[in-house]
């Protein structure tokens, strides 16, 4: 039954796309994020829906789209360069079979992120992509939030639609993405044109924000807590009454404390004492290993190069016997521990060149969004006043992603790469407005100059 509902929805979008092929691009975004083929059981799992949507999106753009205003930009070039470099390192990888497995999805994510901005030529398309991205993630977040409230949660206990701990269905990744999309959600409340400002939209946004904040609690993802802190810090920039905001956030945080489960406190306590938790304490060891590794192999070891690591460290082990708690220190040997950081993931797998390209990709994005905010913040007309707030929301999302990425290997996360595509699309769109207005001003001056010349000639 569920399979048929998914197939009916995909068929519905494919039919709508016959009139507007851009909708096929949005269909691929939906399938790539929500992965209905992994939620369903039989029919949909057997069909290559992702491939069908990609072929429709790309084919529709090539054959039917106007392509007016499509530009190939520096950041798309950087992603192309990263794609080529990843292909090269995959050929030289330490673990060729594992590298090939990761390459199989990374190239698709990067290629789609390169392609996506070419389709974002109008305001409606930019908003459409942002909305489909948001609603696809919201579908997962709504379920997660409701389960947290009604059934508790717990680290690796909370069940998602898909429970293979991969992609967006990994708890820390979902927490980062959910928190990162909150600024964009509130942009829709004020500037949305598909769903216009309305009390129903505001109510939905408030409920969804609450659900997003519940994701790090329900999944007990420590990274999520850091992302919430980052969001709070970033919001200070756009808040007029900062002290009131800080006090309000403090009161809200304190009010939430009694409702949090003990297991959440225990897990968050490891943030301050990383040595007491294996997952946290190995991070530092893996990062140190990665630095040593690229000292020998500066060009990187290809995807999944971390599988070669092995290290021993001392960890405290608590034993509770009645009222007595004894702590003994035992040596733990770890092998093949993942990077637990996108920065070190890029460094270990793609070496210094790969890390530099990745940093440039995100650094330029932050700078472009900052520039757009400053350039358009005084725009008062309906046609352009949405630009600066959207640039601010996208910049906040990118910073929250980078905070989350510091503690998890999500360097090629498709949702984040789609956000990069959205940033590029917005930047190109604004450059086109500026360019068109520049031409208009020149044509007006020329017209005025000719009118003056003719008037002088007639007078003479």
């Amino acid at each position: 039954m569920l399979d048929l509902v998914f197939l009916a929805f995909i068929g519905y979008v494919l039919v709508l796309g016959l009139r507007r092929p851009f909708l096929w691009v949005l269909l691929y975004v939906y399938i790539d994020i929500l992965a209905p083929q992994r939620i369903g059981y039989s029919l949909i799992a057997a069909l290559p829906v992702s491939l069908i949507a990609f072929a429709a999106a790309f084919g529709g753009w090539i054959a039917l789209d106007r392509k007016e205003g499509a530009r190939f930009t520096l950041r798309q070039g950087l992603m192309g360069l990263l794609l080529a470099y990843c292909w090269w390192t995959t050929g030289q990888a330490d673990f060729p079979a594992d590298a090939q497995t990761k390459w199989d999805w990374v190239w698709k994510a990067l290629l789609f992120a390169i392609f996506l901005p070419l389709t974002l030529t109008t305001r409606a398309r930019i908003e459409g992509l942002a909305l489909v991205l948001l609603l696809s993630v919201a579908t997962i977040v709504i379920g997660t939030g409701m389960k947290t409230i009604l059934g508790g949660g717990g680290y690796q206990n909370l069940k998602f639609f898909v429970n293979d701990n991969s992609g967006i269905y990994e708890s820390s990744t979902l927490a980062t993405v959910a928190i990162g999309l909150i600024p964009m959600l509130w942009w829709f409340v004020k500037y949305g044109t598909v769903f216009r400002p309305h009390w129903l939209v505001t109510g939905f946004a408030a409920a969804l924000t609450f659900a997003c904040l519940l994701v790090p609690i329900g999944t007990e993802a420590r990274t999520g807590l850091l992302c919430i802190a980052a969001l709070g810090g970033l919001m200070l920039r756009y808040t007029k009454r900062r002290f009131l905001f800080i006090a309000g956030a403090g009161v809200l945080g304190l009010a939430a404390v009694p409702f949090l489960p003990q297991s959440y406190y225990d897990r968050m306590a490891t943030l301050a004492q990383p040595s007491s938790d294996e997952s946290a304490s190995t991070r530092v060891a893996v990062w140190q290993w990665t630095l040593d590794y690229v000292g020998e192999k500066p060009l990187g070891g290809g995807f999944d190069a971390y599988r070669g690591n092995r290290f021993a460290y001392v960890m405290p082990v608590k034993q509770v016997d009645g009222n007595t708690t004894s702590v003994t220190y035992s040596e733990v040997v770890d092998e093949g521990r993942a990077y637990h950081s996108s920065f070190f993931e890029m460094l270990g797998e793609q070496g210094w060149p790969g890390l530099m390209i990745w940093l440039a990709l995100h650094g330029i994005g932050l700078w472009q969004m900052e520039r757009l905010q400053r350039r358009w913040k005084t725009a008062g007309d309906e046609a352009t006043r949405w630009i600066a707030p959207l640039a601010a929301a996208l910049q906040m999302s990118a910073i929250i992603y980078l905070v989350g990425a510091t503690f998890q290997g999500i360097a090629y996360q498709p949702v984040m790469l789609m956000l990069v595509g959205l940033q590029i699309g917005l930047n190109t769109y604004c450059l086109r407005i500026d360019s068109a207005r520049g031409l208009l001003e020149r044509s007006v001056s020329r017209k005025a100059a000719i009118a003056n010349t003719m008037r002088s000639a007639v007078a003479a």
Partner: protein
Amino acid sequence: MIDYFALALGHGLLAIALLRLMLREGLDVDPLIGEIKAETDANRKATSVAGRNAARRTKTVEQPQADGTSSADA
């Protein structure tokens, strides 16, 4: 049950959003950029040599007619 509710809500909203996008005029051609370009084209036409010549021709055709009308009246 929660999963079905979340999937139904998410897909319902997506279906409405996509339908509204499909019906939207400005999805494939941006109205703002289109408007600016149309204005620029109109200005260019007015200032181009061909445009000015056309305007002059119109003026010279109108001028004798206006003169003729005034002499006949006189």
